[in-house]
C-alpha cells in the first residue's frame, strides 16, 4: 500500500557516506564543496552521514590502497540494502597516476560493482551533483525492484 510512496521518497532523501581509500583529498574537498552554500546539494535532500548503517549512496574516492582494501570491502558490506556505489574522480576508476605502484591494489571495480563513476581529476562540483542525482535515480530503481 505504501510501496509507491516509499519508492518516491527514496529518491528525495539519499544520504551520502564518503570513504577515502587513499585519495589525495582533491575529490574529497570537491564532494564537501557540493554541500556548501554555493552549490548546496541539500536542496535535493543529500546529507552527509557518519556511519555506513545510515547510508544510501557510498562515494569512494582514491585508488584502493592495500591498507584500505579489506576495510573498504567490509564497510561497503555493512551498508543496508538498496545501496549505490559512486566512484569519484579518476583514481577509483583506474588509479590514474598511481598505476602499478606496490601499494595500490587496482581500480575499485575489482572489489565492488561500481554503479556511477564521475570522471575528472577533481571533478567539477556540478559534475558531482549530476553524478549524485544519477545515483539517486539508480537507488530508486534498485529500491523498486528490490521491493518486488
Amino acid at each position: 500500500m505504501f510501496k509507491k510512496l516509499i519508492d518516491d521518497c527514496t529518491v528525495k532523501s539519499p544520504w551520502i557516506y564518503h570513504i577515502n581509500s587513499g585519495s589525495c583529498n582533491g575529490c574529497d574537498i570537491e564532494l564537501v564543496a557540493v554541500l556548501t552554500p554555493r552549490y548546496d546539494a541539500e536542496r535535493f535532500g543529500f546529507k552527509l552521514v557518519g556511519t555506513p548503517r545510515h547510508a544510501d549512496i557510498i562515494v569512494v574516492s582514491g585508488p584502493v590502497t592495500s591498507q584500505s582494501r579489506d576495510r573498504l570491502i567490509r564497510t561497503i558490506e555493512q551498508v543496508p540494502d538498496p545501496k549505490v556505489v559512486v566512484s569519484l574522480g579518476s583514481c577509483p576508476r583506474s588509479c590514474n597516476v598511481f598505476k602499478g605502484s606496490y601499494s595500490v591494489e587496482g581500480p575499485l571495480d575489482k572489489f565492488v560493482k561500481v554503479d556511477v563513476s564521475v570522471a575528472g581529476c577533481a571533478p567539477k562540483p556540478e559534475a558531482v551533483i549530476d553524478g549524485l542525482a544519477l545515483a539517486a535515480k539508480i537507488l530508486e530503481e534498485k529500491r523498486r525492484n528490490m521491493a518486488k
Partner: protein
Amino acid sequence: MIQHFPVLAIMTLFLASFLVVLFGSRNKIVRGTITMVAATVPLVLMICLIKPVMIDGQVISYWLGNWEPVNGWAIGIGLEVDALSLFFALIVTLTIFLSAFYSLKYMSRDDTLEKYYVLFLMLSGAVLGLVLTGDLFNLFIMIEILTFAAVALTAFRNNEDGPLEAAFKYLVVGSIGSSLTLTGVILLYSQLHTLNMAQISAMLQNGQNSTTVFAFVLLLTGFSIKAFIVPVHPVAADAYTAAPTSASMALAGMVNKTGVYGIIRLLYIIFMTMGLSSVQNLIVTIGTVTMFLGVTMALNQHDFKRLLAFHSISQIGYVITAIGLGTALGLSGGLYHAMNHTLFKGMLFLCAGAVLYSAGTTNLDRLGGLAKKMPQTCIIFLIGAFSISGIPPFNGFVSKWLIYQATYERASQTGNFGFALVTVIAVVVSVMTLASFIKVTQSVFFGELPAEFNNVKEAPVSMRIPMWIMAILCIVTGVLPSQVYQYLIRPAVNAVLSPVKYINVMMGNGYAEQFLSKAQAAPDKSVALAGYWQPESWLLLFIIVLAAFTVAALLGKKDRGVQSSSAEVTDGKYATFYSGEKNEFSRVGGSDLFWGLKYNLRHYFGFIGNIHSGVVNDYALWAVMIFAVYTVFAFIFLL
C-alpha cells in the same frame, strides 16, 4: 487470638535458628525445610494481621508472661503492634522470605551452611522483634542480637580478607552505636523508672530535664549509626560488599530500615520533638548530605555490589529527609520510599548475586555483554534500575514524587529557602542514580562479551523465582499508588501522628490524658497533594498508543525493508561497525564513562575519595564526631 501472632512470629524464627544447628548440620534437605518453614510462618502471620491493624485501625498490645501493668506502672515486657510497626514488619518478613528462598541455591557452593542459617535466622528474628516490640530495653536487646548476627554474616566467607576486615569495622562502629543506645536507655530508666515506650512518652510530656535530653541525644545517635547516615556510611558500604549476596540483600533491605524505624519511633512518639523546627532542620540536612554523598561515591565505583551498597545509603538519605519534614505528606513519602527501597534494592542485590553466581566476578571492568547469555536477569535488572532511578511507571518514581512535593510544600509554607534547595538536590541525586545505573547496564549487560564469559549460563530457576516476585511487586506498587497508599501508608502515617492512641491502648484508657497537660496540637493528618499523578490512566494511554503504533507498523510491513540478522557470526555485514577495522576487542568499560561529569567534579571526587580511607579508627572517630554534633545541637536548641 490475633494477640499472639507477633510473639509467635518472633519465636518461630529464634526457635528455628536453634533447630537448624541441632538437625540441619549434616543433610541439606532438613536444613532447607526448617529455614523455609521458619521464613514463611512470620510472613503469613503478618499478612493475617493486615486486616485488623491496618483496615480496622486496631492496635494490638501483648504483655509477655501476662504481666499486666499494675495501677499505672508497666512492669512486664509489652509487645505493641500498631500500623507503623506492622508496615515495617511486612517489609521485614517479605525480605526474610525472599532472602531465605534465594540463599538455598545461592549458598549451595559454600560449606558449613548451618552456621549461615543460624546467623540468618537470628538476624531476621532480631529485626522482627525490634520492629514489633513496645519496650525500650527489649528494643536494645534486639539491636544487640542484630548487630552481632550481621557482623558474623559479613565475615561468613572468612577465607578471603575483604569480609574479615569489613566485619571488624562493622563490629567497632556497631558496638559504639549499641553502647550509646544502652546508656540512653539506662538514663531514661533512672529518670522515669519504667521501660515501656508508651509510658515513657506519656511521662515525658510534663517537663524534660537535661538528663532526658541527653538520653534523647544518645538514643538518636545510636539509631542514626544503625541507619548508617553520613559519617558512618563507609562501614555499610564495606559490609554490604563483603557479605554473601543473600545476606547483603537482607542487610540492605531490613537492617538499615530498623535504624529508620528507631528514629521515627523516637522522634514522633516517644519524645514528640518532631514539632520543633530545629530538629526538622537537623534531620533534613543529615538526610540530604547522606543522599548526595552516597550517589556521588557510587558514581566512580568499579564493583557492582559496592555501587549498590552506596546507592542503598543514598536512598536511606531520601527516606530520612522525607521523615525529617514532620508533615503528613513527608512521612507518607518517606514510608512509601522505604518500602520501595526494600523491593528494588533487594532485587538489584539478587541480580548482583546471579551475576556473581554465573560469571564469577562483579568487577565492572571485566564483565560485559551478559544480556545475551542471561536475558532474564537482564530484564529484572532493567526493571530494578528503572525503579531506583524513578522512571514513571515504576515504583521508585511515585515515592520520589511524593518526597519532592513534601519538601517543596514545606519550603513554601515555612518560607525557608533551604527546603527548596533540598528538592533541587533530591532531583539531581535521582538523575545521578540513573547515571550510575546506566553505567552498570552498559558495562555488565550490554557492550562486548569478553571471551572468558562465553560459557556463562542463565542463573538457576530457584534463584530467579524470588527475583521475579520482587519485579512484579515493584511494578504493582509503581502502577497502583493510590491503593497502596490507602491500605498501607495512610494507616501507618495516622499511627505515627496519633501517639495518644498508642499510649492509651498500651496502658489502659484515659492514661494519656492525665499527663498531657498542655493541649498537644495533634499534627494535621491531612495530605493535600499539590499535583496529581495517575499511573493507571497513563499506562492506559501508553498501551493505546502502543497498539496504534503496532497496527501502523504491521500495515506497512510488506512494503518496508526486510529485517535481517544472521544466525552464525559472519564477518562483514552483521559485524559491529568499527569504521572498517577487524573486530578487535575495543569496548567501553564501566569506569571510563561520564568523562565530562567526572572531569568537572574531579576536585570533589578526589576529596570524598580519600575521606573513605578504610581505616577503622577513622570510622570510629566519625561516629563519635556525629555524637558530639548531636549533643551540641540538642543542648543549644532543645533545652
